[in-house]
């Protein structure tokens, strides 16, 4: 009888250990899960920023905006993004007045989270202008 009681005790102990491990594992996983949820937004934001920096480095971003070449700008942005990614580009002047009369977008319906990045772009032309370019991205399901 004593031996049986000891066995029950050990089983309870093992259960307690497993329960403790489970609780601590859950606590440890909470920040990781949170990170996984934010990671997608961070990736989209990073892609948007890199696209705008790349376009600005060779002067094509300000050049196309200076000339109001929205079709060219749309093609260029699309060429730098994966095909399964929705984008919408909006150009403002420094007073946040909308400059692009036509929508610059990939046009595909969006389902999912939209992440936007603002980028300040200065024109190198003699007629100095400052633009605020907003690029919104989303993955297409």
């Amino acid at each position, binding site marked *: 009888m004593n031996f049986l009681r000891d066995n029950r005790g050990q089983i309870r102990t093992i259960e307690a*250990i497993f329960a403790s491990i489970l609780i601590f594992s859950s606590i440890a996983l909470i920040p990781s899960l949170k990170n996984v949820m934010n990671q997608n937004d961070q990736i989209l934001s990073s892609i948007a920023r890199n696209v705008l920096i790349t376009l600005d480095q060779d002067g094509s971003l300000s050049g196309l905006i200076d000339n109001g070449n929205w079709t060219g700008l749309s093609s260029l942005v699309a060429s730098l993004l994966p095909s399964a990614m929705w984008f919408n580009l909006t150009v403002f002047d420094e007073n946040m007045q909308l400059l692009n009369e036509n929508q610059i977008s990939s046009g595909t319906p969006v389902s999912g989270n939209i992440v936007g990045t603002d980028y300040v*772009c200065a024109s190198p032309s003699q007629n100095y202008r400052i633009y605020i370019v907003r690029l919104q991205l989303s993955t297409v399901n």
Partner: protein
Amino acid sequence: MKGRNAKSHNSGQALIVASLVISVMLLSTAYYVYDTEVNITTSQTAADLSFLTTKSSIVNTLTSALANVTNGGDTGILRTDLDELSSTIENDSYDGILDLQFTPLNSSLYQNGIYISWGSNGTGISSAFVSFLINFSGPYDNSYSEYEANVTTAIAIESTITGNGPEKDVNVTCTMLNEEDSALASDITIYYQNETSGPWTTVLPSDNLISIDYGNGTYFMSFTVSAQNTLQVSAQAHDLRNILVIANTTSVEV
């Protein structure tokens, strides 16, 4: 028997406590490593991103101001444009508080960030230089960085003159540079001066002007003029950024 039972109960408890301690230590160590990695990543990103997202705009602002000044604009335009840029970037920073401060270079060469040397030694320089600091305070990180930006267009000309009679053949070689790298010119106009302090005359196609563009920033021009044994030659050129640069040299008979 009671003593042995108590001992085995105690050793069981010690085992549980030890297991829990080990579990807690492992988990806390893992969490510490994870947390440190996140902090390091955020720290590197904040400083680098602030620079990356502002660098092109600052260089473009210098380019615009230099093009403006070299084509007859006021030198104060650089300060005005930089203030405008700084204000826009600071107001558009949603990830944190961004403080962008510019200091146009003032030195023996540069005045208010602008240096223009269009001398008669065969070299012409148009340059803009600014130091700037980026102070970023975000929810996860603060960063402070100092940088410099420079836009320089330079031209070097060499000229020779040949011919025995009053008609002289003049050869001019121009080399255009942007930030010390070879660069293309959008236009080059050659002038010559027959007498010291005399009028400058534009070389026209009617002067048998021949131009060769080597495509690497080097341009060769040849023309014929009535001249003495020495001739002052001037090249006025715009680079593809519309920055004007002028260089004069004395063309010596060979």
